[in-house]
């Protein structure tokens, strides 16, 4: 019985995606001003590509939330990594390196993300302050670091090799899509096939029991925060390789979009329950909705309205399906 319920919940998001696709391709194509059908191959490729920036972050957020933590600083890490990547390519010694500057700039950006994540993780571990507050503070602090580079001016550096790489298609899929799918695969393996993944569920489910079973909760948290820092930076690397220009306010509210996708994907805020595949579904559902509403000519502003209401509806439905889950957010 519980298995069937579980299956229902796990597949709910994919059912919702099918519903969206059916709606936008049948009704949507009647209303659409575009002569291209919604389900056109190019359109679907674009959906995947545009899911990548938030998607890569949301996948990492899933693990943080399965732990029972949350990370509100990912948007700021995203912007900081982007600025480090673009700014570092203008440093004198980097310019002498030709195209070798690109991988080096990526490494700088990714390391920035990992270090920022490590700071969050160590603070959560050593001070015992809740992750919500630690990362809320970091959201402001990291944003301050972003402004240190160029004040309120945008940072730009267009490198055509980089743009070509980011716009390339391999086996039909865009570079960004490959990064999204690759991240999903790696994290899925991590969560379902490794000790670390099993520990993540155990800690989220019952922290005390996990401690008693000998799991070192503190270092585990630090690893996960480093991981999401890395992923936020990876997301920035993928996105800004193509655009080549970053505003100091970029990435704001990304944390909230990522959390929305994770929750739509069925992960519990209280921790201990959730899946990488579900989050991938949540990310796609949001992006298809965005695209679809644009397709039928609805104002883009209605997207926010619809997504917000769907998020609440999911919560209400979840409650009806799972009356037992009285677990409230423990901060």
């Amino acid at each position, binding site marked *: 019985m519980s298995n069937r319920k579980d299956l229902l919940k796990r597949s709910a998001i994919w059912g919702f995606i099918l519903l969206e696709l059916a709606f936008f391709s049948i009704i949507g194509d009647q209303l659409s001003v575009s002569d291209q059908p919604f389900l056109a191959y190019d359109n679907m490729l674009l959906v995947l590509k545009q899911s990548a920036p938030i998607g890569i972050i949301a996948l990492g957020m899933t693990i943080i939330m399965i732990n029972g933590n949350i990370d509100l600083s990912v948007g700021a890490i995203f912007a900081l990594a982007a600025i480090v990547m673009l700014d570092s390519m203008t440093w004198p010694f980097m310019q002498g390196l030709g195209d070798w500057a690109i991988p080096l700039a990526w490494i700088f950006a990714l390391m920035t993300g990992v270090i920022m994540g490590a700071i969050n993780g160590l603070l959560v571990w050593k001070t015992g302050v809740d992750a919500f507050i630690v990362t809320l503070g970091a959201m402001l*602090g990291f944003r301050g670091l972003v402004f240190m580079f160029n004040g309120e001016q945008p940072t730009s550096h267009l490198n055509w090799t980089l743009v070509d790489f980011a716009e390339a298609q391999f086996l039909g899929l865009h570079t960004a899509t490959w990064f999204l799918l690759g991240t999903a695969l790696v994290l899925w393996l991590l969560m379902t096939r490794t000790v670390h993944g099993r520990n993540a569920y155990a800690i989220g489910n019952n922290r005390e029991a996990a401690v008693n079973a000998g799991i070192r*909760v503190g270092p585990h948290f630090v690893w996960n925060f480093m991981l999401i820092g890395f992923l936020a930076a990876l997301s920035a690397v993928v996105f800004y390789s193509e655009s080549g220009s970053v505003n100091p306010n970029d990435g704001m509210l990304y944390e909230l979009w990522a959390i929305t996708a994770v929750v739509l994907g069925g992960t519990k805020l209280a921790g201990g329950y959730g899946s990488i595949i579900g989050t991938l579904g949540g990310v796609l559902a949001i992006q298809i909705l965005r695209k679809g509403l644009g397709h039928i000519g609805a*104002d883009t502003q209605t997207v926010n309205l619809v997504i917000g209401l769907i998020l609440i509806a999911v*919560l209400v439905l979840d409650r009806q399906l799972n009356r037992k889950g009285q677990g409230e957010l423990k901060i």
Partner: protein
Amino acid sequence: MGLTKQDIGKVLAKQGILIAFVVFMIGFALANQRFIAIDNIAGVIRSSAILGVMALGVTFVVIGGNLDLSVGSMMSFSTIVVLDLHDKIGPALAIPAMFAMTLCLGAFIGFLVGYLKLNSLIVTLGMLSAIHGLTLTWSGGKNMDIADKSGTWFSVFGQGEVMGIPVPILIFAALAALLAMLLAKTPFGRKVYAVGGNGQAATFSGIPRARVVFYTYLISAFCVAVAGLLQASRSLGSQNTVGQGMELEVLAAVILGGASLLGGSGTVFKTVIGVLILGFIQNGLLLVGLDFYVQYIVTWVIIILAVWLDVAAKRGRLWSPIA
């Protein structure tokens, strides 16, 4: 009988935020005389008033054991609505209409969190997005401006002065005093603490938990409406995203004031102190010649130190016992 380490810890935990505030003020005052000039202080309070008013309402929600992430986009909504209606039905009708609509939003959230017992973080996250969409739909995505900016009495709330004191400060102070009384001196206030401190115990002792939570969101929405009024009246025109990101700043001020996100603790007075600390840090750092972004970094350090000391004093040791 000297002071033991624990005693110092307890004093720090109880009044730490006030002590930090005083130290800050003295430090900045020594660094720059202008910092303690009356007009500078008035300027800081005035520019903190909008954030402050919102923080007052969120204090109730947080003490009741919930979160409200929707206040930022709700404030954008109130601002846009009142500006739009100002030219359509006149300010005298626009203000009550805007208050009514904002309170409806608050009631909706209160219903979902209070009566349906949904998770407040996700509900208000969803509402953040939904209300943002509502605002954009209302305004069609365009900036909203009052046509006749010089000929309207509407500007009195944000720009007026009474006996030399700016009106926003008066409204902030009056609302703070009123809500402080409500929280500290009335049965309703005690119920808010009870519900946030231990919801189950509160229910068992006959407190209508759902209704109390519902009212905390109504209070929050009312404060947001006031903040929207101040914002609209100050600038007489607005973007759709005027309140974007403020939900987290408000929360930072409330946490800085010492309210626990677990619920059951915090006071209106401490929240006001939290708001003022944020405002004076920002002002003080600018006055000593540092760039504006330094305040973000300083705020980060202060939030974590403040909460860390609080947590450390409660558990009696500095470092966390997490393995």
